[in-house]
């Protein structure tokens, strides 16, 4: 099922690529179209061709995007359509938007697969939206292109970073970070051990963009051997609050692109790091709270 959804996403991206190629007014139509077409091909051919080919495509996409090859077309403002739609449909326009959430939720609860659930939710919502707005599938592709243009290369960034995390793991980066983090820990000072554990979780999460990658290393390196093994703390407290210390790192890193960088593009913010700046003032005091909670709750 998930493979079918990948093909569907590939088709959307391919249509975006083809309409970009055909857009004579576009400032960089060949490079931008190639970017979206390569992205489409990774979805459609991903599991079917040797990984070296996909890797070469990824390097090409990153290079096109990195050197400014991905530009937006000039999308006219359709204020009249929007006002007419809001007047005609009113709050009913929320039905397809909420259908995505509800179908995803139901599918996740009963079938335990959120990704497939979201995909099916989108198909259902898309069908409702087409009927309700009396618009054509092609028009919906034009609108999809408008939003993807607004995102630009940021659309690719979450997947690039997840890929980097896997390359890190294959190259032994986690082991090296754990060796550095644990080399100089004074195992008998609770404060120092807690600071190294909570700080390591935040720092390593910020670097990897993902607390799930940091947790096994920091829990195995400091959390359990020192806080539980030497100091007899409660392992459930170490795990739960340690993971949250990592999430404080997630709030402030561009490496967590799907949470911090993509929304900047989605919300059309001039500053790529505006969301991180909005979160910094929460992340720092919350991290301090985690350190205090660890010290207090470890030996209740």
């Amino acid at each position, binding site marked *: 099922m998930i493979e079918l959804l*990948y093909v569907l*996403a590939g088709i959307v*991206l391919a249509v975006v690529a083809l309409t970009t190629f055909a857009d004579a007014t576009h400032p960089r139509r060949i490079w931008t179209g190639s970017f979206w077409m390569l992205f489409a091909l990774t979805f459609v051919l991903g599991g079917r061709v*040797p*990984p070296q080919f*996909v*890797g070469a495509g990824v*390097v090409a996409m990153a290079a096109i*995007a990195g050197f400014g090859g991905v530009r937006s077309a000039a999308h006219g403002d359709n204020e009249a*359509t*929007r006002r007419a*739609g*809001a007047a005609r449909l009113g709050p009913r*326009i929320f039905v397809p*938007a909420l259908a995505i*959430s509800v179908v*995803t939720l139901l599918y996740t609860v009963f079938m335990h697969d959120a*990704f497939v659930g979201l*995909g099916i939710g*989108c198909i259902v919502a*898309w069908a409702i*939206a087409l009927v*309700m*707005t009396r618009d054509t599938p092609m028009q919906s592709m034009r609108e999809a292109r408008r939003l993807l243009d607004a995102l630009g*290369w940021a*659309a690719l*960034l*979450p*997947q690039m970073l*997840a*890929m*980097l995390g*896997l*390359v890190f793991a294959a190259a032994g*980066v986690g082991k*090296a970070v754990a060796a550095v983090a644990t080399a100089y820990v004074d195992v008998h000072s609770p404060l120092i051990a807690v600071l190294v554990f909570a700080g390591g979780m935040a720092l390593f999460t910020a*670097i990897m963009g993902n607390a*799930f990658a940091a947790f096994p290393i920091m*829990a*195995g390196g400091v959390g359990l051997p020192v806080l539980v093994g030497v100091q007899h703390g409660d392992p*459930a407290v170490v*795990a*739960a609050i340690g993971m*949250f210390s990592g999430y404080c790192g997630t*709030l402030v890193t*561009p*490496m967590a692109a*799907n*949470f911090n960088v993509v*929304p900047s593009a*989605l*919300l*059309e913010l001039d500053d790529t790091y*505006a*969301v991180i700046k909005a979160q910094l*003032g929460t992340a720092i*005091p*919350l991290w301090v*709270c*985690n350190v205090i909670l660890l010290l207090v709750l470890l030996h209740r």
Partner: protein
Amino acid sequence: MIHGVSLLPLIGIGVLIGGFLLRLNPMLVVLAGTLATGIAAHFDAGHLLAAIGSGFVETRNLSLVLVLPLAVVALLERHGLREAAQRIIAAIPGASVARLLVTYLGVREVTAALGLSALFGQAVTVRPWFAPMAQAAAERDRAPSEEEKQRLRAQCAAADNVGLFFGEDIFVAFGAVALMHEVLKSLGYDIAPMRIALWAIPTALCAFVIHAVRVIRFARRLQGRA
């Protein structure tokens, strides 16, 4: 070398930090970091490309959840979804930026704690209706400047992230709790997932209080009543 572990792969992290600090294009930074890591780990060209390719193929679900909702949301925006969201806020007496953001934060956190994290999201709710609603609420008092509007939208994205992150670990069946359970078990500690989820609650409460206070202060500044 520390304890026989090679530190050479850390070069990739140095490239990333340097690149982000110099504010180079993130795509180039990530590409350079990937290549540096692979070279430092003595991957040959074919091996490195294969590692990049298989890593990319394995993580397609991340882009899937972005591309498919956008196709729907884009069509709805053409027919006035954002305008409809703004009208709803205009029709509610007493709707304010602080109330809207704190309510969203609370609902987002509680639903995530109940395992309903799929109900909301940056592409599914923040862009299509939450940010437009916040903007409509801000415009009640006075017309915000473009810079203020952008900072408000960034606060909307932040409320979604904070609510999600610090709610979902309370849900026992969430992946993070399962991961913690598995890691603890592999290290010889078999702890019930319920206990791990329970000890997430103190931080979850702190997160709500800290962020809600910041949101309220932000809303006050926005309304010029600092």
